[in-house]
């Protein structure tokens, strides 16, 4: 077998050197009645050529996604990923390495973690960053747990316009901890700030607001933070479309205490929803309550700058059941992508890219409204918006498919009241011509 180096002869030789006559001698600890006696009923072995053709045949059962442009976002955004990023990710030194426990053999990983921490710091305003947690949803759940540790309180108030799957994830994570979860209603596609006042009290650990929210709406985060603080609660902002941070005020400047976010937009493919990359950002005061891996700068034996995993006393392999979390494996490989993406686009590029997203999405919305088939309230949004339509679902789907566009998200799945409403996402993968074509087929 090509992935196993030793030949039968070599194994025999080694058994002899070990001093046993057969492999069986080595595993005599295993009771015979536990042994699996037959052959495992799995397919294979396939030659590499057969394997490729089999897996490709499965892949071909999917739609031809390379040609399709999605009008659906909702937490998974199709942004263009520069080829440089795939080149970087294909360096074996990155993808075949382990967690950087040996800093001498992992400065590449550690410096990248540190650089991403810096990028996210520039975007959020905070200096204490956990650069890689599974995804935005689990990072948000970890953030909520963190606020409960920080505050010693068990009541959490969450905007109903937090991504529904993020809400579900929080619920799973807090379930063992007798937590009271309160959801805030919304109004005109924004979280209802008046309603919050009635829902907050002094037992509240945290007020959780997503901005841009699930409907793309840009919340007045500063007002929510103030309100949270009035009740002695922490303010947690969730950022699912992190590209918005290129244009929007830094969470820190809005009085937020913790940010949990999803960095998929920064150079990570859609991947059917994963692997993505969650992150946390907060003030240095809270750094020792953060879960997950953090890189820090130090000097080596010779005084040279070096990077290490730091503040490790928070972690499970040191603190076991007293750790801030059980996080061990993160999604570090994504950090090379994020680092490269944010470096390539940089200060000007990320701004221009975000601006394009804003203008393109607003253009499509206003053109769709003109067709007469759509209606919706005015509200500030980034690159996603909600419209109600009089078109049948399958009519809209078919027309969009005919021009290689994936339909927007039907909101009724998550919001019972919104029967004919859709959540549209528009990114830079759409040219103005593309959008005009959409308007044309939907405007008929």
């Amino acid at each position, binding site marked *: 077998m090509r*992935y*196993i180096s*030793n030949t039968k002869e070599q*194994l025999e030789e*080694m058994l002899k050197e070990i001093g046993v006559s057969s*492999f069986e001698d080595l*595993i005599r*600890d295993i009771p015979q009645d*536990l042994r699996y006696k037959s052959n495992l009923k*799995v397919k294979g*072995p*396939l030659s*590499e050529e057969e*394997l*490729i053709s089999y*897996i490709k045949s499965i892949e071909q059962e*999917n739609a031809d*996604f390379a040609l399709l442009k999605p009008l659906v976002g909702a*937490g998974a955004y199709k942004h263009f990923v520069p080829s440089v990023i795939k080149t970087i990710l294909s360096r074996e030194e990155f993808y*075949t*390495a*382990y967690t950087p426990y*040996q800093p001498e053999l992992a*400065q*590449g*990983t550690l*410096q990248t973690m*540190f650089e991403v921490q810096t990028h996210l*710091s*520039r975007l959020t305003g905070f200096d204490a960053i956990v650069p890689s947690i599974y995804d935005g949803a*689990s990072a948000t759940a970890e953030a909520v747990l963190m606020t409960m540790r920080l505050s010693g309180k068990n009541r959490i108030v969450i905007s109903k316009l937090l991504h529904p799957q*993020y809400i579900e994830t929080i619920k799973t994570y807090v379930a063992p901890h007798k937590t009271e979860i309160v959801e805030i209603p919304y109004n005109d596609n924004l979280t209802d700030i008046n309603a919050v006042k009635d829902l907050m009290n002094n037992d509240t650990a945290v007020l959780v607001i997503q901005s841009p929210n699930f409907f793309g709406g840009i919340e007045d985060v*500063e007002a929510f933070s103030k309100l949270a603080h009035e009740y002695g609660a922490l303010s947690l902002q969730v950022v699912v479309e992190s590209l918005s*941070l*290129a*244009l929007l005020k830094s969470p820190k400047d809005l009085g937020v205490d913790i940010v949990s976010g999803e960095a998929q937009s920064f150079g990570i493919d859609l*991947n*059917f*929803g994963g*692997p*993505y990359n969650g992150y946390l950002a907060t003030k240095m005061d809270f750094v020792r309550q953060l879960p997950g891996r953090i890189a820090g*700068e*130090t000097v*080596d034996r010779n005084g040279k700058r070096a990077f290490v995993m730091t503040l490790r006393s928070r972690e499970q*392999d040191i*603190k*076991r059941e007293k750790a801030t979390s*059980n996080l*061990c494996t993160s999604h*570090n490989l994504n950090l090379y992508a994020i680092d490269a993406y944010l*470096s*390539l*686009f940089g*200060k*000007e590029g990320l701004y*221009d890219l975000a601006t*394009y997203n804003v203008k393109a999405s607003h253009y499509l919305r206003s053109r769709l409204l003109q067709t007469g088939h759509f209606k919706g309230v005015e509200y*500030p949004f*980034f690159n996603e918006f909600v419209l109600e339509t009089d078109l049948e679902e399958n009519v809209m789907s078919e027309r969009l498919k005919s021009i290689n566009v994936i339909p927007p998200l039907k909101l009724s799945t998550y919001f019972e009241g919104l029967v004919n409403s859709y959540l549209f996402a528009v990114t830079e993968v759409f*040219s103005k011509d593309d959008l005009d074509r959409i308007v044309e087929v939907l405007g008929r």
Partner: protein
Amino acid sequence: MKLIYEKSVKGRIGYSLRKDEFEGSIEDFIPEYALSKTKKELPEVSEVDVVRHFTRLSKLNYGVDDGFYPLGSCTMKYNPKVNEYLATLDNFTQAHPFAHIEFVQGNLRLMFELEEALKEITGMDRFTLMPSAGAHGELVGVLIMRKYFEDQGKPRSKMLIPDSAHGTNPASSAMAGFKVVEVKSNAVGNVDLDDLKAKMDEDTAGIMLTNPNTVGLFERQIQEIAEVVHSKGGLLYYDGANLNALLGIVRPGDAGFDVVHLNLHKTFSTPHGSGGPGAGAVGVKKNLVEFLPSPLVCNCGKYFGLEEPRKSIGRVKAFFGNFTVLVKAYAWILSMGPQGLKEVSETSIINANYVLAKLKKYYRPAYDRFCMHECVLTGRDYKEYGVKTLDIAKRLIDYGFHPPTIYFPHFEPYAQETIMVEPTESEGKETIDEFINVMIKISEEAKTNPQLLKEAPHITYVSRPDEVKANREPVLVYKEK
């Protein structure tokens, strides 16, 4: 080496965008209360700058393709290149998780077929592929256990965990609200059955067990352990970190385990990616299926579809699992086939025992037994020369090897100087011999020239970074001077 920020030049460009043909300016669309007054201070570099930066960074790293990487308990095996290719096929990487079910039949089929294979390999009845990592799988597993008892109207509050276990076990249990009760190891490195019997009661959800355990030894009395736990109505959790030893030899499901998690990035060869993404599939026996996280993939007639288990613990992340990791794991299984899978375990057990046989004179183990797929040695004999196991590990770097896992498990039988070596099935005898010879050479050096070890490594870009300083005065982001 310089940070990318230290290479930034004002006005330099590394990106391209299609022309913005839309009217209006950003202030027309974003309200003043939200719009940042300044652009965020990211670096400004060219494409060449970025490519060279990461090329250089890569050369400060060490991967499996660079050589022997015998990290015990981490199963750093070869990551086949064809799997990387297959995971980047366009229709996989460009699939939107909210695309209609008809659009993603290929993805669902792959997940379905992978689940079937994992069921067969482990002897479990159903799997979720949702968890992103081993620890994530553990959390799912213990939440299932928690919910199972709640559902019976008899919640339990404690979880048994052997003293040799990974830190994630107690941490996961704590996250699921369990009180952790440690079970001792006995004189031969297995669970102390008496201690177990004393601690297992009807307020205890069960035990989290790694088998072979983290000392690389098979739990000989696994049947008795199961009997003890089950007799009190408890459940057995299988930590799959060490499944590489048992493929085709023992199925956890046949050995009494009720819940298992598998690290697809260990046993199933998906790469570790400098610390992830991995995937932590969780399998359960029939009676626990209804508690699995939602959604599960089903083969529902014409289409592959999704279903929600009736009493699901809920979601543990958005969307589905780490799909591209799943592709690699499945491709590996198909490449191996039934016979190949068995050869994996046989070869890795022989490789580890060979290391043990050759090195036990020099790095005395705590227990005199054959090991499974990894062996645990110690550096305890070199303490008298002022040499710590850390120094031995660092010295290995000078010889071109990645150090083994050290200081884990961190408990007495090893004088806390553990060296855990896992060669995996990928490594050839000549590589292992080279490692053995170097280890012996280092044992000599430890006696004759301890300073050489204490200052190692000598050939790397940095050597012995000051972790205490990093911890005391945390510098977590770059600031321009």
